[in-house]
C-alpha cells in the first residue's frame, strides 16, 4: 500500500444524490417537522417513541450528578445525628400544629357540607424524585422518576413543600418531564390571596420570575401580595401558594398593569416533588398505582 488510502481519495463518479440536493431535502424535512410540531400533535408519537428509546442516554447523562449525590450521602454520623434531632423537634412542632389543623379541617368540612359544596380539601398525592433538571439553561424542565406506570398523566400539577412547581408535559412508562412555572411557555391561573382577584401568571424565562400581565389598571394589588393557585381551568388544585408580588409596573398608555412575582416554590433546589391529582381529573381512569404509596384520603362530602 504505497498509494493514498482508499478512504482519502475522492471517488470520480459519486453514487447517490449529491451533497446540495441531499442537504436541501434534509433542510426541507427539518423545517416541515418544526412547523408540524408547532401547529399540531401529529409528531407526538414519534417524539414519545424516540424519548422512550433514549432513556438510557438520559440516565447515563444523569450519572455524574447521581454519583456526587451519593458522595454527599456519605456524611459523618455526627452531622446526621444533629440533623435528626433538629428534624424531630420540627416534627413535634408540626404535629402540634397539625392537631389544630385537624380540628379546623373538620369544622371546615362541616361548614362546606352545609353549603353543599363537593370540594375536597386534600387531594391524592404521590412523591416523585427529581432525576435531573434542565440540560438547556433556557428551558425550565425537570425529569421525574414516576411515569404512566404510577398513573401520572399529562397536565398533572406538581408542587413542593413551598408552592406550585409546574405541570407534567410528557409521560413515559417510568419517567415524566415537567415544565416549571418560570418557563416562558407556562401559564397558570392564579388568585390574589388578599382580594380574590383571578388572573394568569406567566413564566418570564429568566429562571426566577413570574409575570402577571393582565391586571386591570385600577386593580387592588400591592407589593407583597401572595398569589395562590386557582381551580379555574381544572388543572391545578386550589389554594397552593404560587408566588409573591415584588414589583408593579404601570406602562403609560397601556390598558393593563403588570405585576412581577417571585415563585414560592424552591424551583431548582429540592430533589423531591409532589404530584397532585386534581379534583376534576377522574382518578379511576388512571392505572392502579403502586400499593400503599399514594396517600389517599377518604373522599369527603361528595354532594
Amino acid at each position, binding site marked *: 500500500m504505497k498509494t493514498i488510502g482508499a478512504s482519502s481519495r475522492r471517488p470520480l463518479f459519486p453514487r447517490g444524490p449529491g451533497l446540495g440536493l441531499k442537504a436541501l431535502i434534509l433542510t426541507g424535512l*427539518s423545517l416541515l417537522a418544526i412547523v408540524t410540531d408547532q401547529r399540531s400533535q401529529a409528531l407526538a408519537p414519534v417524539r414519545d417513541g424516540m424519548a422512550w428509546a433514549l432513556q438510557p442516554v438520559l440516565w447515563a447523562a444523569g450519572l455524574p450528578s447521581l454519583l456526587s449525590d451519593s458522595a454527599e450521602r456519605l456524611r459523618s454520623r455526627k452531622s446526621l445525628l444533629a440533623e435528626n434531632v433538629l428534624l424531630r423537634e420540627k416534627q413535634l412542632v408540626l404535629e402540634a400544629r397539625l392537631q389544630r389543623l385537624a380540628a379546623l379541617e373538620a369544622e371546615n368540612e362541616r361548614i362546606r357540607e352545609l353549603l353543599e359544596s363537593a370540594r375536597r380539601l386534600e387531594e391524592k398525592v404521590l412523591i416523585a424524585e427529581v432525576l435531573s433538571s434542565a440540560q438547556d439553561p433556557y428551558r425550565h424542565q425537570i425529569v421525574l422518576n414516576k411515569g404512566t406506570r404510577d398513573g401520572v398523566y399529562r397536565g398533572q400539577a406538581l408542587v413542593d413543600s413551598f408552592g406550585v412547581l409546574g405541570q407534567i408535559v410528557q409521560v413515559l412508562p417510568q419517567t415524566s418531564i415537567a415544565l416549571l412555572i418560570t418557563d416562558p411557555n407556562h401559564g397558570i391561573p392564579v388568585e390574589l390571596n388578599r382580594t380574590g382577584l383571578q388572573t394568569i401568571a406567566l413564566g418570564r424565562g429568566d429562571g426566577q420570575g413570574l409575570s402577571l400581565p393582565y391586571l386591570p389598571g385600577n386593580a387592588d394589588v400591592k407589593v407583597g401580595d401572595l398569589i395562590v393557585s386557582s381551580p379555574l381551568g381544572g388543572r391545578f388544585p386550589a389554594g397552593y401558594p404560587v408566588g409573591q408580588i415584588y414589583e408593579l409596573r404601570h406602562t403609560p398608555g397601556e390598558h393593563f398593569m403588570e405585576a412581577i412575582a417571585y415563585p414560592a416554590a424552591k424551583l431548582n433546589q429540592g430533589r423531591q416533588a409532589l404530584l397532585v391529582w386534581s379534583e376534576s381529573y377522574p382518578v379511576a381512569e388512571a392505572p392502579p398505582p403502586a400499593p400503599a404509596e399514594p396517600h389517599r384520603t377518604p373522599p369527603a362530602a361528595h354532594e
Partner: protein
Amino acid sequence: MNRKNSRRLFWGSALVALLLQLIELPHWLALFRPQIVPMVMAYWALVTPQQATGLFGAWLLGLVLDVLLGTAFGQHALGLVLVVFAVKQARNFLVLFPMWQVGVALLPLWLLYVFLMFWIDGATQHQADPWLRWLPVITSAAFWPAVASVLGGLRRREREDQAAL
C-alpha cells in the same frame, strides 16, 4: 472493513458528544458549554472526503438532540445539516490550514448555528436571554483544537490497526 470501522468511530464519537452536551452542570457553567455535537459533526465533515456522507447521520443526531432537550422537533437537525453542508462546501479551502487555524475559520459557523437556534427558539415562542446565548460561540472556537486532536488521535490509531492487519 475500513468503512465499518469509521462508521463505528463516527457514531461512538456522536454518542460521547451527546452525553457531554447533556451532562448536568451548574447553571453558570452551563452557559459556557461549547456546542460539542456540531463540533464533532463538523470535524467528521472536514476529514471525510466523500461528498455526501455524514449529512444524514447529522440530521438523525439533531432529531435525537431535539427529543432530549425538548426543543422544537427538527430544530437542531436543521442546524446540524447546515453546519455539515457548509463545512463540506468549504472543505477544499479549509484543508489547506493546520487544525488550530481551522478552528478560527469555523467561528462564523458556530455563530450561524447559535443564531439559528436562537431564531427558531424565538419563532416557536421560546425567548431567552439574547446576550448570554452567544457565549458558546467563543467556547466552541476555544475547544476546537482539543476536540480535533482527540478525534484525530482516535482516527490515527484506527488507521494503524488497519495497517497492522
